[in-house]
């Protein structure tokens, strides 16, 4: 019982990192980054491949973030001029490209075979193989990520991000290089998605390309939008609710064959209702533009 909750909380922790970092780019910077799953995937693969080649977890974990961040930089350069739905489509296309590469670059990723047997993390001899230890690790990372993002958005830099979101041209006319600002935001967001991917890989111990298909963005996007843009509190509450909400379905006595579709329907309906009747989400400051 408790152990199952621990598992759920670990999932919440990983989703929190993903959703909060997506919030940074969508809610605070106004970048319609729908390619978050690509960075998550890159982070998971980097970390898995590193540790499978006997590189210590800490190094793999940080490299996962850094390499995902580098891809964020790479993506930010050509997409810098794109806005709104075009940016959304370009980042979706980026997810496809990463997905197809991970499926086809068999010599590196083993393609559809996936990477099994990813070791549980251990830092300086301290093993995180039990779920409770892993929970502590995820919690620490999630809390650090929370304070990191808080720090960013409360600093003057965060205000520049918000200014860019509200009115990019006016920000530029005030002398701010929004190109750089948007890149930094995307890189940080990608970095955090990368470390979330690393945690995922080491928790599940098996990754394959299908875990990172484009549609996986939907629940994370739901968390960000339902919680409300530019509100970390909203994101956190929405993440907790959305991870836990479908769980009772498993227990209430629904036939298990409709639990999956029911969960999807619940997500989709909540998303639609929020968009229609409460466009700022629970705690949002701004509307999606």
């Amino acid at each position: 019982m408790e152990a199952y909750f621990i598992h759920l909380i670990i999932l919440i922790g990983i989703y929190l990192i993903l959703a909060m970092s997506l919030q940074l780019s969508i809610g605070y910077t106004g970048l319609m980054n729908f390619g978050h799953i690509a960075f998550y995937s890159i982070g998971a693969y980097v970390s898995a491949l590193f540790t499978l080649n006997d590189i210590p977890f800490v190094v793999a974990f940080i490299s996962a973030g850094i390499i995902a961040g580098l891809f964020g930089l790479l993506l930010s350069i050509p997409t810098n001029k794109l806005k709104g739905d075009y940016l959304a489509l370009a980042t979706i296309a980026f997810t496809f490209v990463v997905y197809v590469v991970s499926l086809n670059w068999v010599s590196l990723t083993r393609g559809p075979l996936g990477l099994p047997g990813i070791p549980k993390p251990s830092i300086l001899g301290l093993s995180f193989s039990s779920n409770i230890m892993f929970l502590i690790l995820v919690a620490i990372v999630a809390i650090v990520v929370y304070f990191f993002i808080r720090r960013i958005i409360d600093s003057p830099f965060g205000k520049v991000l918000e200014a860019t979101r509200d009115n990019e041209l006016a920000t530029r006319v005030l002398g701010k290089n929004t190109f750089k600002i948007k890149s930094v935001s995307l890189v940080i967001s990608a970095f955090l998605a990368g470390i979330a991917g690393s945690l995922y890989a080491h928790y599940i111990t098996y990754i394959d390309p299908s875990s990172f298909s484009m549609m996986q963005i939907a629940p994370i996007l739901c968390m960000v939008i339902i919680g409300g843009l530019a509100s970390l509190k909203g994101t956190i509450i929405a993440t907790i609710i959305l991870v836990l909400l479908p769980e009772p379905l498993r227990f209430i006595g629904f036939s298990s064959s409709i639990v999956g579709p029911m969960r999807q329907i619940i997500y989709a309906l909540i998303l639609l209702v929020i968009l229609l009747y409460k466009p700022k989400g629970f705690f949002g400051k701004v509307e999606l533009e």
Partner: protein
Amino acid sequence: MKKQNKIYWIVGVVVVILIIILSFITNRKESSSEVVKIGVLGDLTGDLSSLFRGVPRGVDMAKLDIEKEKDVKLQIFLEDQESCNPQNTISLMNKFINIDKVDFVVGGSCSGTTLVAAPLANEGKLPIISPVSSVPNITEAGGYVFRTYISDSERTEKSAELAYSLGFRRMAVLKDISAETEVSSSSGGRKRFEELGGVVVSDESLTINDKDFKTQLSKIKLSKPDVLFLCVISPGQISIITKQMKELGLDIQIIMPNEIAQNNELLVEAKEYVDGLIYTLPGDAPLSDKLIQLKDYYKLIYNEEAIPIYTLEAYDAVWLGTLAVLKSDRTKESIKDSLYQVSQDYKGVSGDVEFDENGDVHKSVVFYQIKDGKFIRY
């Protein structure tokens, strides 16, 4: 106004959390000694669910029979992995171990998810018996991982040998590169065929979402093969591939090293063009009374002529697990240990299910052919 709104939200959140907690608590049933609890990792939704529909049916039939024959109640926890999603598998294994406290698990449909479940099974000391997984590396997955299905390695080699012995020398390979079993099977079959002295004239691939294979097939046609070694996992793709082969006039023998073609829908939907296809099934169980009974019973309940694949393997898995539980002192280690013992005496309906030290079974490989809308022993 604003304050009121806030209160609504807080109340809403509290209610949701209460429902969640309540639903967990109400589900916490006391376990009694006569009840054997079985977790089933099924794949009930998603693109592959029709493939795996035999698993829950086999489990159900086993439950009926066991409760009739032995003085024991089975409690089945059937759960959905949703298209072999590893994250769901982890959730479900955690639920089985910690909440349902099951005695053993039947399932792990895709080989990937069985591998995901393996470390949890070994750590939580929960035996898991997969009626589906066939990739070779399950063998080394750990002491608590068993399977009633055979490993791919033998049947792919046998299929290649069959192709060679039928006089074919030019093989074309078409494989689904998004399915782990198919990639390893195709390379295994290819290697064996070349060892025997045959030539692999083309090697093409596809992915699970593809629905148009005309160019792959044109490429294959150009290489003038005399046999097609087809490694795909979706019955729907078999029907399109065979249909498009017919349309393109590519009229060669198809050999599939796996069991996917044993699918009733193929007979209904694609009867004309799958004719002649050769595939393998594991096991060579004698047609015992029990098996005849099962077949009749299946026809009665599900209104289908042939029992779908994995049904009998799932049936055997439930039997083996339950017998092992009854024989053990109900600790997890002893269930695992007695699994080896009971498998020696138990007569499987899916063939010889005696576990070796790795938890694998060794059944003979049998070839079948689709002929005139029927699955016929080849």
